[in-house]
Structures are given as structure tokens and as C-alpha cells.
């Protein structure tokens, strides 16, 4: 960038690698492997799991190193291919994938099973970064946001088709984070993602009403809310209420002599109505297990054996670990099988039980270091493309961390999102290491000389 930085250039690639970052990644992998060794020990396929894990680990480290060696800008140069690959792998999954737990999200290839959705997410981030980089001069336009979303939509829809709701959900923070970091118009961004958020929260509200007040009469508030989901007079009435709200806001603004464009007030009823309608559509599409996940989050004590069993057992495991934990291989919740998915989605709870607060805060701390270094890589990236890729990856990684850890501590609904690097999962580990390799690459090539 500047001469001041250029003088600090050291010879060779290794001198410019962010070793703090690499150490955080290595620490997370070690901690995750330890937790997995302990958590999977009670499963019947212990040796197979270990084998797969260490094969994936070896491949992943190799991939990380290889990615570090080649210039990341190749992804921007081959952006069309990257995007086509993203579409291709999720499309292929739908055609060739194996159905497991009601989802067609795995491809079996050469004896390995592979979950392409996560790789597609990184590919989409790369493609979107290229797109936003090209639109740098028109970044303030609404068209940039909408076209960017249109770019990502096919991949997300194909992932939703699997249906893998939680992985599709992790696309959203990456897209938002990148558009935000690229400097998109805040008002437009808020409107678009507000609409998206509302479209997701409307079915959530419906589910809450259904669970909490299953027999609500139409005269009560929950009953009225539920009535709007049936696409009748009640829905129309809701739209009318939204229009009235927009009108009132306009009146209030002019009374208070606030200078806002009238379009902003028109946006209120339009966005709310659109969000309501798409929310109703989503509500009708929601699967039973997804509804149950909402339920177990809303009312964890309502049915211990049912959907919220996992949440409660995870919290018991985590909390009972205390400061120092019960020791590896000694967690009663995990070793006796009370903790579900203990080496995959709920591995963090297993760490909390067996390694205690120091274990969980170590993981959390390593994650924060990792994210800090990714943000640092974004800060020092030599080009806008690298900056955007890092911002997107940081957002999605942070989102996954919040979703997974938040699930284990009972702060967010059970989403079925693994904790990258820590949860067991060969393809996830491979893809994550490859993705992190790109970030390491961006950092290493920050001086634009190589």
C-alpha cells in the first residue's frame, strides 16, 4: 500500500504468515480433537470416526498450506468458474445426494461423504466479493444490494431445497457483513435485511402463538395473529394496519418537522406487508422439526423428553462442568449418553462438561483471537477483494460461533450448526481449513509485492 509498509517486507512467504492466526487455528483443532476423542469414545464407530477425523485433518492441513502457497487473487480472476462451481455442487447434491435424516445434503465420492453446502458458502463469499469489488463505484445503489442478493439466491435456494435450513441461514450474515463492509447504503441495507428478518420472524411469532396459546380464541391477540396466517380478511386487515402505521409516522414526522423523504414512510407499509406475506409463505413451508426447534428454544422446560431434551441436557452438561470440569472421558452427561450429538453439534457442551470453564473460555478465546486476526487480515488486505472476503468470512464464522455456542448455553434456538474446527465432521473441517487458508493467504500477501 504505502512505502512505510513496504520497508517491513521480509523475505519469503513464511516471514509474512500470521503465526498468531495459525496458532489459534491449531489450538482450536487440538482442543476439538481432544474433545472428540473423549466424546466419541462411547459411540460404536469410535475407530472409524477417529480414522476419518485424522484423514480429514491431514488433508485439511495440506489444503491449508497449498491455499497459502497460491495467490488468492486467482479466485477473483476465475470468479465465474467459482460461482459456477458453487451452483454445480449444490445442484449435484440435490441430484446425487444421499438422503440422511430427511435431508439430501451429502455426496458420496470415492469412499468419502462430502457436504457441499459449506463449501458453496465459501464459494459464494468469493463470488460476491468479486461482484462487490466490481460494483465499488455504484456501491450506494440499491441495485448493488439487490443484484448481489440475486447472485447468492440460487445457491441459497438450492441449499434450502435439501432442505438444510441452518446452513442456508449462515449465508445471510456473510452476505450482510460483506455488503456492510463494502459500504452499501445503510438505509437500503437495513430495509432489505429488515424485510428478510421480518420474513423470518413472522413464522417465529406464529409458532410461538401456536405453542403458547394453542386454543386461543380469535378475539385474543394471539388468536388474531394466528388468523392473519390464513390469508383472509385478517391478513388484509393487518396490511391496512401497516398502511395506517406508515401514515401516522408521516404525520408525526411532519408535525415534529423532521426532514425525511416521503419514500421512507411508504416503505414502512410496503416492507411490513411484504414481510408478512413472505412470512406466511415461509410459515407454511416450515417443517415440523424446525417448528420443534423453535419450541424447544421458547419453552425449554415444557417437554424434557421431546424437542427441548437436547437443550436441557446440553445446559446440564455445560453448567455441571464448573470451573475445572470433570476431566476428559469422565463427563457423566456425555459418557453416559445424556448429551446428544456430543461429538458433533454439541461438542462445545462436552468441552464445557469435561474441561470446565477454562476449556470453554479457552475455545471462546481462541475463536476471538481467530476472528480478530481475520479482521486484521481484512484491515491490511492489499485489495478490496481480500478485504471483502475476510469481512464475509469473519461474519459467517462469528455467526456460526454464536449459533453453536448460543445453542449449547440455551441462548438461541437449536439450529444444528456445527462449531467449525471443533465439531467432528470431515468435510466441514476440510472446507473450513481451506477457507481459513484463503484468509492466511490474504494476510501473507498484504504488501502486494508477491
Amino acid at each position, binding site marked *: *500500500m504505502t512505502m512505510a509498509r513496504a520497508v517491513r517486507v521480509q523475505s519469503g512467504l513464511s516471514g509474512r504468515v500470521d503465526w498468531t492466526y495459525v496458532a489459534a487455528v491449531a489450538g482450536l483443532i487440538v482442543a476439538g480433537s481432544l474433545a472428540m476423542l473423549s466424546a466419541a469414545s462411547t459411540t460404536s464407530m469410535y475407530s472409524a470416526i477417529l480414522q476419518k477425523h485424522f484423514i480429514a485433518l491431514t488433508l485439511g492441513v495440506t489444503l491449508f498450506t497449498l491455499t497459502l502457497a497460491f495467490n488468492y487473487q486467482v479466485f477473483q480472476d476465475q470468479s465465474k468458474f467459482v460461482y459456477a462451481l458453487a451452483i454445480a455442487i449444490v445442484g449435484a447434491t440435490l441430484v446425487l445426494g444421499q438422503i440422511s435424516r430427511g435431508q439430501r445434503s451429502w455426496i458420496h465420492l470415492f469412499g468419502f461423504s462430502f457436504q457441499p453446502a459449506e463449501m458453496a458458502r465459501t464459494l459464494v463469499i468469493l463470488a460476491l466479493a468479486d461482484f462487490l*469489488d*466490481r460494483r*465499488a*463505484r455504484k*456501491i450506494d445503489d440499491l441495485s448493488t444490494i439487490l443484484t448481489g442478493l440475486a447472485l447468492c439466491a440460487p445457491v441459497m435456494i438450492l441449499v434450502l431445497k435439501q432442505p438444510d435450513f441452518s446452513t442456508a441461514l449462515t449465508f445471510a450474515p456473510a452476505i450482510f*457483513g460483506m455488503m*456492510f*463492509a*463494502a*459500504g452499501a447504503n445503510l438505509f437500503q441495507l437495513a430495509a432489505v435485511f429488515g424485510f428478510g428478518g421480518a420474513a423470518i420472524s413472522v413464522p417465529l411469532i406464529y409458532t410461538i402463538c401456536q405453542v403458547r396459546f394453542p386454543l386461543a380464541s380469535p378475539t385474543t391477540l394471539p388468536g388474531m395473529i394466528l388468523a392473519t396466517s390464513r390469508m383472509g380478511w385478517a391478513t388484509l386487515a393487518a396490511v391496512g394496519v401497516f398502511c395506517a402505521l406508515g401514515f401516522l409516522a408521516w404525520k408525526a414526522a411532519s408535525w415534529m418537522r423532521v426532514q425525511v423523504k416521503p419514500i421512507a414512510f411508504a416503505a414502512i407499509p410496503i416492507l411490513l406487508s411484504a414481510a408478512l406475506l413472505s412470512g406466511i409463505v415461509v410459515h407454511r413451508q416450515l417443517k415440523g422439526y424446525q417448528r420443534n426447534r423453535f419450541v424447544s428454544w421458547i419453552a425449554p422446560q415444557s417437554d424434557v*423428553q421431546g424437542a427441548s431434551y437436547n437443550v436441557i*441436557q446440553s*445446559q*446440564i*452438561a*455445560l*453448567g*455441571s*462442568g*464448573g*470451573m475445572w470440569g470433570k476431566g476428559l472421558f469422565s463427563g*457423566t*452427561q456425555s459418557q*453416559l*449418553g*445424556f448429551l446428544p450429538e456430543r461429538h458433533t453439534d454439541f461438542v462445545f457442551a462436552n468441552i*464445557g*462438561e469435561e474441561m*470446565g*470453564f477454562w476449556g*470453554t*473460555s479457552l475455545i*471462546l478465546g481462541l*475463536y*476471538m483471537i481467530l*476472528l*480478530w486476526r481475520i*479482521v486484521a487480515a*481484512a*484491515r491490511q488486505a492489499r*485489495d*478490496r*477483494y481480500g*478485504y471483502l472476503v475476510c*469481512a464475509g468470512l*469473519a*461474519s459467517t464464522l*462469528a455467526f456460526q*460461533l*454464536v449459533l453453536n*455456542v*448460543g445453542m449449547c*448455553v440455551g*441462548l438461541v434456538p437449536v439450529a444444528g450448526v456445527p462449531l467449525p474446527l471443533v465439531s467432528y465432521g470431515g468435510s466441514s473441517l476440510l472446507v473450513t481449513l481451506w477457507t481459513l487458508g484463503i484468509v492466511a493467504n490474504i494476510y501473507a500477501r498484504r504488501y502486494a509485492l508477491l
Partner: protein
Amino acid sequence: MSRGGAVPQERLEVLWYCIAAAGLVLGLRLAQMQLVQAEEWRLAAERNRSQMIHQNAPRGRFYDRHGAAVATNAPAFSLIFLPGKERRRQDLKPLADELSRQLDRDPEKLLESLEQAVREESAVRLAENLPTQTMFRLSELKTIYPGVDLIVEARRYYPFGRFASHLLGYMGKMNQREWRRRKPLGYRVDSRTGRIGLENIFEDELRGRDGGLRMEVDAQGRLKRILDKIPWEVGSNVHLTIDAAVQRAADDGLRATSTGRGAAVAIDPRNGDLLAMSSQPDFDPNAFLSTDPDEVKSTVRELSEFNNAISGAYPPGSTFKPIVGLAALSEGRVAPDDSVFCPGHMTVGGRTFLCWDHKGHKTVSWLKGLAQSCDVYFYTIGLKAGGAAIERYARAFGLGIKTNIPLKNEKGGHLFGPESRRKSGRNWWYDGDTLNLSIGQGELTVTPLQMAIATAALANRGSVWRPRYTQKIVYADGSPDFVKGPERLGIVEAKGAAWDEVQRAMEVVVSSGTGGAARIPGLLVAGKTGTAQNPHGQDHAWFIAYAAKPGEPASIAIAILVENGGHGGSVAAPVARSMILAHFGMTDPAAKRPNPPAVPAGAVSPLPPPLPLGRPR
């Protein structure tokens, strides 16, 4: 920068702050759960992984006065089932069928309890007190069906069976109200508690602390290992004043009488120790702990909780006469040699009062009067002593007042006389009332326990003791024994000569009077028979007695009542005789006498049937 100029770095900073804030929230939540609430979660995890199988602790024992255990514990095997999380009805069905074959129980009911266990995720007791053979057969099931296990625990056991049933009580399940009350004290819903009698009264002392096996179970409820054994604590032992031999003689004797209904109480006249308390019909307390629930149900249905010895009030009849005699002799109105002519009846106030022997006893003085139980003689001396004196003496003997023995549902009986009439506001007293009182009839009712205490007072010349059944309580925790000394309720003041005459006459009753059936060579036995009129049916047979080794103070005083038994001398006295023999550790010199035939009721009192022993003169 390749294209588009500078990047908005400040946007990145905002993004980073958001990420850091999210990390902080997660960190705080982790600290809250793992540092602040750790203990609560730890307990939850502990509850998750461990299941407690309780083992009933041995209950404190009851010993008789010589140290023989009259209520103890026996090992019992219980079949338990530990449910898993993923059991389905079809998995439980074969187990229920197998168990119903082994236990001979309804498979539907078994399946129901199995399903309940699965629903509630808690271990369930499928069967208790299994016989040893069944236990061995069932132990094979452990290997086939996960979750089935056998544990050993203590069960109440009454070695003598039907023995002092009403006094000892029995063990049973709690009702809802009692369960609510006892829950905070560490009782479980299936805990058994003493229902009546001493088992109930000493519940707090007798109950031990249940132990158990704390077992680690996995999410499927499969038993992984035993975490630890919580040892049970044995309850405190209670040493009773009961003499098992005397008690058994009383139980067996009463049961063998013609009606098999009645009560017997034996007391040590030297201190009020209860030597025996029997009430018939009785029950076998072991039956309440049977393995067969139907048997328990039928036992409870047929149970007679009524303790005749303290809750039954009967007219004492002629057994009241020694007290009347003491009153008359001591008050100086009557000399022992004063003779009365008995023509078989007496007319007072225009009414004719019959003697039980319609032919009359001819010339009767004190000794013959009591020995033959001549009613006319007692009418006469009763009139001379006066109703008020008789009432005063009877009250001094403790009649008409509850003894306040710590047993439930004690009755005080009813003593009547001029004074109690006045107190109840009925100011009339006729000679006819005195006559009825003089032969222990009329409104007079007493409990067998009161009668035994009065007999003891006759034996010890006036000391009325509070009946006492606890020798000592030996606490399991090592705290000093509870010992309660004898307690004198009162003293009957009477002249020494009067005591001599009454005791001598009671000896004559046994040696050559109506109570001959109680005569034992080598022992000094004194007594009095009674045949109490009963408006509801056959007369009640009474016998009171005390006995001593020659030259020693009397050590046993007895009151026997046989409901509708007829004549006391023939029905009740033999029971007293075997109790006295048991008390002195003697064998019956004339074992196995046939029961005398039942006697028809007469106008006042039937003629005594021919007695095999000691026929009255």
C-alpha cells in the same frame, strides 16, 4: 487497491465491535452457567446419571422382658425395574409376560407399572418380599432383560405370628394425609409405618434411616455400575415389659374359649408392668406384609382393630365384689363373722332381687359369701356400707377413670354411685341402685385393663399403678437409654384387717370356691369369678386373679374377660391358670382339659356347671 478507491475501514471496525460484543455475551453466559450456577447444574447432572434404589432399613426390634424378640426383621428380596429412555410398549410386553408367569400376577397390571416407570423415568418395585425360590428363578431374568434387578432389604417380621396383635400393631401403607405429614421427615410414598399399637406409638424411635444403592445409569436407563451404597441405619430397640410366655398363654387361652372373643390383661402388682395384653379376635401382623396384594387386602378387610382390653367396657359382675367387701369391712359396718341368711332372693323397696343360686346359700358369712359369690350376702353388706362408700372405694381402685396408658382409643368405663349421680344432676339414689352396684351390675362398666389394675391393687394392698409397657428404649445412636420408672396413680386407703380378710377370701375362692379352675399346687393363687349379665346376649365370663410364690409378694395380677363366655369360673379361670403357670415358668400338671359345655343363661346367673377341678362346696 485494485478498483474503486479506498475501502470503508470504519465499517470493518463496527463489524469487529459487533463480533467482540457477541463474544463477550457468550463469555458472560458461560461464566454465569459454569461459575455461578455450577452447583445447580451439577445437581441436575447427578440426578440425571444416578438412580436411587431404596432399601428399607431394619426397624427397631421389640423385645419382651426377658429379651426375646417379639418383633424383628427378616431379609426380603424385591424385584426392581430400571426403565430406559427408549423403551416401547412392544419391548415391555415380553418382560411383563415373563414376569407374570414367574410372579403369578396379572400381566396387564405388570405392564402398566412397567410403562409408568418408563414414563416417569424412575425405578419401580415390581414385587416385594419374594420367596427365595422365586428370587433364584428371577435372577436369571437379569441377564435377559436389561433393567431388571433384585435387591435385598429388611422387612418387619413377627416371629410369634398371632401374638399381642393389638398391643404391637402392624405395619401398613400410609394414607394420603399421613403421607403429606410424614413426607418432610424422609418417608417415601411406599414406606410402611406402624398403623396401630406400639408400632404406631414408637414409630419415630423404631424407624431406621433407609439406605440404598445409588446407581449410575446411562441415557437408556441401563445400569452402569453402583456408585455407592448408602448404608441403612437401624432403628432403636424397644424393650417391653411384656412376658412372651404369659402373653402367648393369654392369646392361646382366649382363642380356645367357647366364643374365642375377649381380653386378658396381666400386670405386675409390684410396679404396674404390663405382662400381657391380649384381645381376641386378633390377627397375624405378618399377613399385612405378604407378597400377595390380594391377601393383604383381605386381611385389612377382616381386620378387627378393636382392642377389647382397653376399648371394651363391660359390667364387671361378681369380680367387683372384693371391692364391695373391702369397702364394707374397712368402713367397719360389717364384721367378717356377721352372718346373713340367703333364701335365694332379697326384697328391697318392693322389688325382689334374686341371688344367682335360686335355692339360696342359707347362712353366709364373709368367707363363704365371697367364695360362693352369694348375691344376697353382698346386697346386705352393700346396703350396710352404703352406695357412697362403695363408689369411693371403686374410684380409688381406678374404676371409671382412664388409666391413660399411652394407647389409642382407651375407654374409661363408667362408675356410678350417689356422688356421680349428684354430679350429673340426677339427685336420686335408691337402695336398689346400691344393690345393683354391690354385685357389679347396673350402669357399672369397666375395661379389662382397669380390672387388672384393680386386681393388682387388691394384691399389693392398695397401690394403684399406671400400667407401663416400656422397660427401656435402647437408642441406635448411642444416646442414653430411655427408662421410665413405675408411677403410682393412687393408693386405696383401707384397714389392714380388711385387706387381710379380702385377700384370704379371694384365696378361698380359688382353693375351694367358684374359681377352683385356677388352682395351682405350690402357688398361692387368689381370685374371683364373675358372670356379668349382658343385655345383648349371653353373659360375659370374667375372672380376676393374682398369684404369688409362698412367702413372696404377688408378682402377677390378671383380669380375663370372655365375651358371652358364660360362667367365669369355668371359661375364664383356666386361661388365668395357664398364664400364671407361664409366668412362674411351670408346666401344666394337668395338661389338656376338655372345654366345659356351654351353659344356658339363667334369670340372673346360671348355675355353675360341674367343674373338673375345685368344685364349689
